[in-house]
């Protein structure tokens, strides 16, 4: 089954290779797959790709950690205190639709080039899905669990850690995976638009250097990194929740 799934991509690669070779094109936007592969090897060999990957992942992970922590905290707070949730509804809904990349010019002026700017924008982008989904996850907790908490006279902290987080955790994990996908996208976008470091910057520089093979090599690599990241997260989710988590993860 799996081998058959690879057939179409392989055919397309061969077609692209033949097309590029036979047409003898001097395109500045396309390159033959074999050239892209060689370019990828050379970018790994000279270390530039690995440094760029480290920079992008640093920004993505730090932004993800900060953004999801903030989103989680506020999501729990709003989920547990309905009046506060209603009070903040308009504010949240007003800020949430602001595209994170629209913050790039402001972040550039306020924070300058470097990790901080990328991290701030990634954190902004990751906080909202986490907040919204955590809030929804808490709203979906079986009401009887709260009755149990009351009967046991649990403190607020004990309620959060013994009842709410365990009950909402599978859905929070979905939110985390969603945020992780966003983190990588936003991190790369910030690099393409402004920040002179990381994989996005690598794509931009390769494009401007009229080196489509290297540009596409970076693109392929970003795909591989994204795939690996998702694979690791699905694995973690599966490991933590067994079949139930895995069933959701395969959707």
């Amino acid at each position: 089954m799996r081998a058959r799934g690879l057939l179409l991509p392989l055919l397309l690669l061969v077609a692209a290779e033949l097309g590029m070779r036979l047409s003898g094109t001097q395109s500045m936007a396309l390159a033959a797959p074999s050239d892209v592969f060689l370019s990828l090897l050379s970018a790994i060999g000279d270390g530039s790709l690995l440094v760029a990957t480290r920079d992008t992942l640093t920004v993505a992970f730090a932004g993800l950690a900060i953004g999801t922590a903030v989103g989680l905290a506020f999501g729990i707070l709003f989920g547990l205190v309905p009046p506060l949730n209603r009070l903040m509804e308009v504010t949240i809904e007003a800020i949430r639709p602001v595209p994170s990349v629209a913050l790039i010019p402001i972040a550039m002026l306020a924070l300058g080039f470097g990790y901080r700017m990328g991290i701030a924008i990634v954190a902004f982008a990751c906080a909202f899905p986490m907040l919204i989904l955590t809030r929804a996850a808490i709203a979906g907790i079986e009401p009887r669990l709260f009755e149990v908490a009351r009967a046991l006279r649990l403190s607020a902290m004990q309620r959060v850690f013994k009842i709410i987080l365990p009950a909402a955790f599978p859905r929070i994990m979905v939110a985390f995976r969603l945020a992780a996908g966003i983190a990588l996208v936003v991190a790369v976008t910030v690099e393409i638009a402004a920040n002179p470091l990381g994989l996005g910057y690598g794509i931009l520089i390769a494009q401007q250097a009229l080196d489509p093979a290297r540009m596409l090599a970076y693109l392929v690599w970003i795909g591989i990194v994204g795939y690996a990241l998702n694979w690791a997260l699905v694995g973690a989710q599966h490991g933590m929740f067994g079949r139930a988590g895995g069933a959701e993860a395969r959707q």
Partner: protein
Amino acid sequence: MKLGNGASRLGTVLAVLMGMTSIASAQEKVVIGCTATTDCASAAIAVEEGIFEKNGLDAELILIGLNSNIPAGILSNSLQIGGPTPSVFLQATDGGLDLVAVAGASSTAKETADTVAIVTRAGVEISSAKDLAGKKVGAPGIGAFLHVLFQQWLIENDVDPKSVQFVEVTFPTMSDVLQSGAVDAVVAAEPFLSRILSAGTGKVMSHYLEDLPEHQPQILYASTREWADSNPEALAAFRASIDEAAKIVNADPDKARGAISRFTKIPPEVLANMKLSVSDPVITSEQLAWWADVMNQQNMLQNEPDVDALVQK
């Protein structure tokens, strides 16, 4: 005991010295940001040939993707010196950013005017500026250097730029866009220009820079006023280095090509047949006044810039 004492003292001294040098280098380090063109060749040569170092300047050149990001990079102190186009520079200062021009990078010249052209689609009859009225023209960046100067050329040929429909088309796609008939003409520059011509998708209608004055800046070096005022020695060293490097660029273009290739990662074979922008280390308020005038005619500035104050003495 004595030995241990001596060693620990040595260690302390070394640590203090290292701390001091790291602070000193952190203060003096000058980061210069430029885009992937041949205009910052003087800075690239000054880095490669050790001219900055010789003049006591610890300088690093970094590649910036978009020219319009440079003012923000300078203002946030990520860059101490950047290479914006005059249009980006004047719009930034017009918007209230306190930047000053500290040196010239490159300027227009008759011998490089043929590196830029308005290219018309094969099969479309456009022989004069007037014929462009009502046509769709692709430009690499609306409001950017080539587009502003092209509109200036239209104005000087009595064509209202508003009568021309401009769309943004990136350099690498120009040939394909011409071929598909999506635009009637494009504003193209080397090395893309010669590729379009060899592909036969368009022909040169005018090397319009030939009709515009020479010695107008294409890229200038700028910093914040604060940095320029508080680092007179670093600025003097920068200017002396650029002055010396510009002479090398203009006298030995092949050496400059090597430096640019290593800085921008543009393959040497692409640069080999390309004319480099003329390096011109001088920037004057008269030059900025010319640009301000051009931009004012196109309603690109809100205020009348004080061009004398925009050039660091």
